[in-house]
């Protein structure tokens, strides 16, 4: 193999990619692999790269491993485990020089695929399964476990971690433990006997820390339980479906009334997203905490109702797990492309409070907090996550909850307060000067506090009016409320290259662009470029965000959409000169990488310093 570049041992820095066929049970074996590395104390970032299909099409599972805490995707596959002949040509091409291509050699390899700069490792998966198992389904399922066993030998994983995991996984179905461990051993032993193990890329255990490994959507569902949601109205759509499924899963465990056995929650699968949003609005109007989860197409359908909730000032929580649009776009690929659609959802002058989590812990925290925010601010709160965060296992700080925390239900008059009130109740009166009025729940008091909720213009007492001055006063109050929201929403997170002074480069980012951006800062430092970062966690934008932009010479906005939507929102809302904000845009549906961010930043920095040098030289001459 003459073309293989010189190899030096690499510990804890690799990307393994599994090429599978959708619907063949590979997911649980692949998860087993990733989880074992996680339990070995390593940083893992598994990514499911799946088609919009239930069975038959190619699907991939990519696991990046390192011990520096980097959780973004990384380009270049060190080891490809190919179990899908359909995608083999593409899969061979993806392996980086010096890497390995593991394939099922029960059938001969198509020689046209051969490359001389990588190693081909033949693992007779089909043959082993034919010999070991009689049942067709078992042959297919255990094939997946066998390659995990082989991988363990090839990269030197702790075998006991794998067997412990299997024991955990099949708690309650102990009969299944032995056959699974046997399958692992088949692969492990075959590799040991037939190949030089380990390869030049290996893994080594590290202390585990208190991280958890969980999908963002699961964390959202759990956050809704802790945040006191009692009602969810929803319509299925990838990649948001598992948010409500998680909510239901946790509710069934933790929200059954011990006395009566009845459910302390209600989930209604709506007829469409319009109805889902209508239900959420109706429930919140009536004093319950309700939410929905959807993705881009659902946002389009919910827009009319979002405008009503904004204008009539009804709390609502909406979780948008973004995917690649427009239209049906790439429904199983990730993007951050609903920023503008959500910020300005609906007709007329409408804007919404947005929050942007970056990790499962933030999904949990921000979901729970959104219910407080929605009721405090009496407006919809839209949480923007995405497929990458929502549907992939993400390593995260553990969930936390303060035992003494109480729900912030906002400004609501109860019966006693209404009873002792001598003045007339004004639903839209700005009593406290913060733009946030008081509300009442239906059924509170027989004679006081009732009002009419409407999408039409009204005065401070909720009485219909088309008086221009009343209308303007109300719209201005809504703006004031939006300003108040700045002090309620999660603050930006700023990192500095040097604690004492601003770096010349400032990078703004949000949501799942965080991991790539923070890692890019390290890459840039290696190239002699110092960069500070500012992670936007909410809209309306905090003043610190504008200060950050103003205090950096070269500013970048990293996002995963074509049109630089966050940049547009910044320019529009903070009155910025667009030329101040450089775009860093990744929108091919794959999670953004640190290399991508670093290259984009350094290209601009080097170009401008080059032209500065030229200018300086010209000035001298």
């Amino acid at each position: 193999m003459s073309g293989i570049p010189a190899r030096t041992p690499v510990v804890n820095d690799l990307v393994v990619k599994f090429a599978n066929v959708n619907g063949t049970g590979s997911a649980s074996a692949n998860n087993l692999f990733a989880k074992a590395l996680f339990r070995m104390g390593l940083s893992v970032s598994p990514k499911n790269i799946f088609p919009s299909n239930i069975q038959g099409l190619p699907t991939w599972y990519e696991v990046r491993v390192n011990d520096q805490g980097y959780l973004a995707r990384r380009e270049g596959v060190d080891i490809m485990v190919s179990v899908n002949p359909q995608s083999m040509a593409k899969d061979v091409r993806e392996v980086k020089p010096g890497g390995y291509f593991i394939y099922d050699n029960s059938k001969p390899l198509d020689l046209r695929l051969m490359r001389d700069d990588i190693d081909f490792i033949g693992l007779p998966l089909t043959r082993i399964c034919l010999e070991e198992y009689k049942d067709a389904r078992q042959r297919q399922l255990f094939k997946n476990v066998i390659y995990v066993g082989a991988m363990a030998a090839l990269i030197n994983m702790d075998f006991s971690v794998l067997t412990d995991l299997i024991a955990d996984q099949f708690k309650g179905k102990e009969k299944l433990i032995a056959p699974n461990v046997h399958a692992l051993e088949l692969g492990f032993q075959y590799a040991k006997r037939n190949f030089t193990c380990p390869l030049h890329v290996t893994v080594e255990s590290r202390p585990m820390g208190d991280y958890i490994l969980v999908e963002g959507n699961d964390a959202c569902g759990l956050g809704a339980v802790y945040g006191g949601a009692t009602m969810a109205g929803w319509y299925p759509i990838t990649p948001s479906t598992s948010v409500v499924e998680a909510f239901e899963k946790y509710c069934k465990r933790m929200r059954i009334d011990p006395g009566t056995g009845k459910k302390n929650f209600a989930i209604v699968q709506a007829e469409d997203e319009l109805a889902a949003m209508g239900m959420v609005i109706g429930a919140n109007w009536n004093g319950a905490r309700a939410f929905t989860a959807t993705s881009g197409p659902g946002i389009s359908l919910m827009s009319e109702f979002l405008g009503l909730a904004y204008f009539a000032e009804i709390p609502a929580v909406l979780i948008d797990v973004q995917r690649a649009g427009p239209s049906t776009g790439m429904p199983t690929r990730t993007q951050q492309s609903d920023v503008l659609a959500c910020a300005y959802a609906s007709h007329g002058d409408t804007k919404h409070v947005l929050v942007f989590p970056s990790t499962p812990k933030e999904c949990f925290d921000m979901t729970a907090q959104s219910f407080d925010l929605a009721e405090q601010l009496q407006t919809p709160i839209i949480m923007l996550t995405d497929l990458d965060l929502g549907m992939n296992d993400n390593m995260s700080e553990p969930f936390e909850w303060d035992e003494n925390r109480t729900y912030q239900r906002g400004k609501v008059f109860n019966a006693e307060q209404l009873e002792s009130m001598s003045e007339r109740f004004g639903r839209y009166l700005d009593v406290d000067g913060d733009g946030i009025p008081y509300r009442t729940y239906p059924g509170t008091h027989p004679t006081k506090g009732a009002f009419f909720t409407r999408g039409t213009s009204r005065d401070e007492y909720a009485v219909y009016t088309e008086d221009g001055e009343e209308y303007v006063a109300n719209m201005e109050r809504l703006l004031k409320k939006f300003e108040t929201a700045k002090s309620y929403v999660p603050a930006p997170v700023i990192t500095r290259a040097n604690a004492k002074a601003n770096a010349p480069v400032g990078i703004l980012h949000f949501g799942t662009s965080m991991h790539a951006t923070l890692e890019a800062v390290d890459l840039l430092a290696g190239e002699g470029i110092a960069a500070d970062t500012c992670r936007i966690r909410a809209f309306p934008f905090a003043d610190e965000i504008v200060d950050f932009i103003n205090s950096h010479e070269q500013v970048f906005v990293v996002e995963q959409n074509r049109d630089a939507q966050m940049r547009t929102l910044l320019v529009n809302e903070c009155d910025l000169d667009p030329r101040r904000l450089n775009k860093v845009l990744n929108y091919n549906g794959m999670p953004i990488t640190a290399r991508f961010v670093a290259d984009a930043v350094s290209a601009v920095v080097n170009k401008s310093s080059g032209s500065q040098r030229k200018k300086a030289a010209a000035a001298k001459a």
Partner: protein
Amino acid sequence: MTYLRPEFRHPQLPVNELGYSRKDYEGALSTLCAGCGHDSISAAVVQSMFEMSIEPHRVAKLSGIGCSSKTPTYFLGKSHGFNSVHGRMPSVVTGANMANRDLIYLGVSGDGDTASIGMGQFAHAVRRNLNMVYIVMNNGCYGLTKGQDSATADVGSCSKKGEPNKFEAIDLAGVALELGATFVARSFSGDKDQLVPLIKAAVSHRGFAFIDVISPCVTFNNNPGSTKGYEFVRDHLEATGTVDFVPMREEITACYPNQTSEEVTLHDGSVVHLCKMDDKLNVRSRNSAVERMKNYKDRGRILTGLLYMDPDSQDLHDSIDSSKKPLRQLGEKELCPGVAVLQNINDSLR
């Protein structure tokens, strides 16, 4: 909780069991056209609630958009109201009802609001048997947008615009029956004697109670040639019988000698007493209702009155087995699983 009765009451005004006068059930002054059928329906709502001695604040009134959907402003001024968006009242009621099962939900809609833009939401509220009263003020046209034909306009019916309608009419009572509504009635805004007991029975019914009320639009669809005008409806109307709503413990009035009667006891103990003019109708049978409606339609007649009811129906809360205590009354204690549970969840994710 006890509350002071309303303070300012004209001493001569009759009061109900709760001490409220009819005024306590009225709303703002109507801004609809003089003579609009919708106003009569508002008046029937006021009378029903007053006579049933329902505390006004125990009712939540919701609507979509249209002249008809404006009416909740004109009745029950002490109730919370919600004028939502066009065709989407059912979903808002669904959410509201999930939040608090203890209130009475009165949804008001138009034929445009229900039979066109809101058809989907209507259908799904019916099939979930949401516990609510759903009144359609049916004038065969879009009043608020100036008289276009609606989907309930009969073939050949001619509004003020002068063009006969070419498309098949949707019969909302028929649709409701087909989709499993557990209470279906039809009435006429000009027949308060029939409408008031129907509204009362609908309020007492547990589950989805649908009343299609023909309600002429005097401005755009009351001309000769229209099948939803006052004159045409009066001339073609026939009733299944006279309906008496009898609250618990009260005596039932007898029928006229040549009529057959049928009684249905509701889950709250009240009784619907029907003196039948059409003795072929069996109000407990969905098929019978469908058959009688078709029979009248084929003869060019409009069948009104109580068409079908299932007094033992299960509403949405029953189907999903949600807490008897209104969800909105639950607090941190019931809702938040706490720190120890969260630690276990963290551990399970390692």
